[in-house]
């Protein structure tokens, strides 16, 4: 179902990330965990072509304690992200899977316009505790700046 947002000057469809933010904002603690767990379990497998790079430590997000690996491509004007996060770190894995799901197939401009403090917009800091959120924000910033760099947005 396509949702749309009302804006004083225009009516437009909600982006996927906006829909996800809305769902998280309405969720309680247990529902938040359940959604993150679903995402964690549905992160697409890392394509064969990246496995060697990952094993050699390339494309790791350095600020995150959990080993998170991200590859970003723009093809035909649309974003494509591949990522790998260990199953033993389900919170980070779920969050990365959420980003992959939200941004794959989006335009670079949509990623650029996603909220600066997504972790807060999703309510994760409030529900899961602020001390856990630094790694998530780091991964998010890396993906946003990676998309920006790959697409050449100024």
């Amino acid at each position, binding site marked *: 179902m396509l949702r749309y947002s009302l804006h004083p000057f225009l009516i437009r469809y909600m982006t996927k990330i906006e829909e996800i933010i809305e769902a998280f904002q309405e969720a309680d*603690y247990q529902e938040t*965990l*359940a959604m*993150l*767990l679903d995402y*964690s379990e549905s992160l697409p497998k890392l394509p064969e072509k990246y496995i060697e790079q990952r094993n050699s430590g390339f494309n790791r997000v*350095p*600020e*995150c*304690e959990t080993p998170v690996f991200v590859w970003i491509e723009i093809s035909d004007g649309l974003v494509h992200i591949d990522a790998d996060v260990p*199953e*033993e*770190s*389900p*919170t*980070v894995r*779920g969050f990365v899977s959420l980003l992959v799901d939200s941004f794959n197939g989006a335009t670079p401009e949509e990623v650029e316009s996603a909220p600066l403090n997504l972790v807060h917009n999703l309510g994760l800091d409030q*529900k*899961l*505790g602020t*001390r*856990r959120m*630094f*790694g998530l*924000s*780091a991964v998010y910033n890396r993906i946003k700046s990676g998309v920006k760099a790959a697409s050449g947005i100024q």
Partner: protein
Amino acid sequence: MAEYVHPEVLVSTQWVADHANDPNVRIVESDEDVLLYEVGHIENAIKIDWQTDLQDQLIRDYIDKEKFEKLLSEKGISNDSTVVFYGDKSNWWACYAMWVFKLFGHENCLIMNGGRQKWIEEERPITKDVPNFPATDYKVSGTNDAIRAFRDDVVTHIGSGNPLIDVRSPKEFSGELLHMEAYPQEGALRGGHIPGADNVPWATAANEDGTFKSADDLQSIYMEGKGLKEGDDIIAYCRIGERSSHTWFVLTYLLGFKDVKNYDGSWTEWGNLVKAPIEK
């Protein structure tokens, strides 16, 4: 060969498997990752989260007596339950949860040696089923302040030259970093350590498989290595008091020191305190 001073507080994965349906035993999982329990846990294990359950959400402190009583009553833990803790990261968070239980005077607390990692590596079964134990009427009779240090206690402690163990990584101790390598550098305005502290990173006490090192190894690390001796009054600290709970457990139960405190304010308090003395 030396023995642990209180070997009875450590139980094996097999012991936990044998007691999963023992009504006098409550198994508690406490992890750094808030979602690990949901991925799957030991049969009949209860989740207690260090941050959302045990910490006050407004003031920098633990929950109060009433909230602790309510939490344990709802989880089906009674005053005479034997509580066995386990978790990720070599039981780092399990020790933290146990320390909070001890602050509220819970008598029978055990740690499952090796934690979640060992249980999974042994390919023991896990479940997503959440147990629903009958509620209890848990009562806290008194708090055990002897295991918690506040900053003024630390000031007095260093003034009298008592041993202080900084369990952070060497680069945090030297002031080069404000948090473990690869963790975001947040939380303190100054780097370094409390004057007089000795550096023994917490994980020095853990084996690769998440179990605790042997009594011989622990003695050579803390006693021969750092000069701790029987009768010492010791304070351990880290960044927020979590890693140092692991060391508190090791010093108290495995090496048998009778007066060990965890300074939970740790570096995120000391490194922000105006005029607090710092060494680099």
